[in-house]
């Protein structure tokens, strides 16, 4: 009886709060973490930066399945002292990933649900902060941004869109390997002209000359081998420091075990999204995109090569579209050339 009374007392002290206007005051240095309820699912969102600018960049993470709140916590892209000084950035964990909690079904995981979550978040942020929303997706997030634009051709909340290293093709798409073959060939010619790894790149050109198409598994493995040896090692992902791990363990909003040891769960979600993406032929539907969009990729991005981004650019019907290829950058163009990336974003948004 006593135990029940104490529990009731503890519960009562925590619940029954109400929304106040000052919950979402704008400031040049906002840093707020909250959850948004979409049906029964709670989406964790962190808004950080200059909300007083009246503009919020809604960041759509890649992966799929990569966590985002820790990406923000350790300031992986380095935007805390750059982009967030100009605008606010909203980071959120996609459904089922990162800081999820509660019970939900794997069946809920689909691109359609992810697009619906995005619409919900954009609508919420726009109202809460009375702000313009700019949707910016990286990699898979860029592809998700295209899908959002197709799903909301006239009622989309953002007034501008940015796809950063966001491919138009999926793994099952034959066009993907046409772009990738072209990327390897063009990169070989470029690198030979720069007198860099000439012998190795000559070998690549020789290999490509016997393969007008890359179709077999063995050829795709060989393509990946050349990329790993000659491209990726110069433009790899940013490595994490001990300080990053320490920071995440002690100050992130995650339950560390849930977030980091349950990779199997994320794999299920990732696989479901990849299959869902593959079943939708996006390249055939790019002409349906006619919103204001900026496309950015790195010259050495093997996931979203410039050859592919050119195709996306040419097939989008928007009259307000822009393509930027960042030299000396790979798939993480924001980390490889942060200053140039930052300038491109600011020039586009302002």
């Amino acid at each position, binding site marked *: 009886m006593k135990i029940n009374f104490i529990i009731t007392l503890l*519960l009562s002290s925590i619940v029954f709060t109400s929304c106040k206007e000052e919950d979402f005051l704008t400031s040049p240095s906002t840093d707020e973490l909250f959850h948004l309820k979409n049906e029964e699912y709670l989406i964790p969102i962190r808004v950080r930066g200059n909300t007083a600018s009246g503009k919020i960049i809604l960041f759509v993470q890649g992966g799929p399945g990569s966590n985002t709140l820790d990406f923000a916590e350790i300031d992986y892209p380095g935007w805390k002292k750059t982009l967030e000084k100009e605008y606010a950035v909203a980071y959120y964990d996609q459904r089922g990933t990162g800081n999820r909690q509660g019970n939900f079904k794997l069946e809920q995981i689909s691109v359609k649900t992810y697009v619906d979550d995005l619409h919900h978040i954009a609508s919420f942020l726009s109202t809460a902060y009375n702000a313009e929303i700019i949707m910016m997706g990286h990699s898979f997030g860029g592809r998700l941004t295209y899908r959002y634009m197709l799903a909301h051709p006239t009622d989309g909340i953002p007034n501008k869109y940015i796809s950063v290293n966001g491919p138009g093709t999926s793994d099952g798409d034959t066009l993907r390997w046409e772009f990738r073959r072209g990327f390897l060939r063009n990169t070989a010619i470029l690198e030979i002209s720069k007198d860099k790894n000439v012998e190795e790149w000559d070998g690549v050109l020789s290999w490509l000359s016997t393969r007008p198409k890359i179709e077999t598994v063995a050829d795709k493995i060989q393509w990946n081998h050349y990329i790993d040896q000659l491209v990726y090692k110069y433009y790899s992902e940013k490595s994490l420091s001990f300080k990053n791990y320490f920071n995440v363990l002690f100050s992130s909003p995650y339950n560390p075990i849930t977030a980091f040891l349950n990779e199997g769960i994320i794999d299920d979600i990732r696989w479901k999204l990849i299959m869902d993406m593959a079943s939708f032929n996006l390249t055939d539907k790019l002409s349906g995109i006619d919103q204001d969009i900026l496309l950015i990729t790195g010259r050495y991005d093997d996931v979203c090569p410039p050859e592919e981004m050119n195709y996306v650019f040419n097939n989008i019907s928007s009259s307000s579209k822009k393509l930027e290829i960042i030299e000396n950058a790979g798939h993480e163009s924001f980390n490889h050339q942060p200053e140039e990336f930052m300038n491109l974003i600011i020039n586009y948004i302002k």
Partner: protein
Amino acid sequence: MQYLTALLILITTTEISAQIKKPTAISVSYFGETITHPGLKIGLDYELKSWDGNKKKSTQQTISKSIILSSNIGFYFHQDYQTGVFALPELRYSRKNQKGNFRSVGLGVGYMRTFIPNVYEVNTANEIKRTTEGNNYFLTTCFVAFGKDLSVKYSIPMGVYIKPQIMYALPNYPNGVTYFALEIGINYKLTSGK
């Protein structure tokens, strides 16, 4: 159903303990996922059985062994993730040597309610409303504990212990959610004994 099962176990164990036995000790401990996610746990110990174990041949030491049921309540606070409030009966087997050093191993089954901070929803009129959200969990735990009974050497009727544990709460996608928690506490004897 699981929620009801948990409550039933909790109430039954507590009631049996209260009616049959008097508590032998009260424990108070820091309880947290990490240092930055603090909490508190309070419990009453009921000794179900105790006996002296075999002497170690080499040292001629007597090992005191006991089986203890404890009723616990507690909470932890993780600012941006959740606050958890739980009631957690535990059963443990403990061994103590003549110097007062003890180690225990045990299991617990109980109920946990979480509260998720700063939750908002938008209605069809695009109005923002703050709402209260959380989850009910059937909570299980397994632990080891290491400590020292201060009454042996210092005549203080108290023990100190450290108790790392893994908690598993369900339902959660895909089945349950795992927590690591560390308990550091004191155990004050309410009756004189071993």
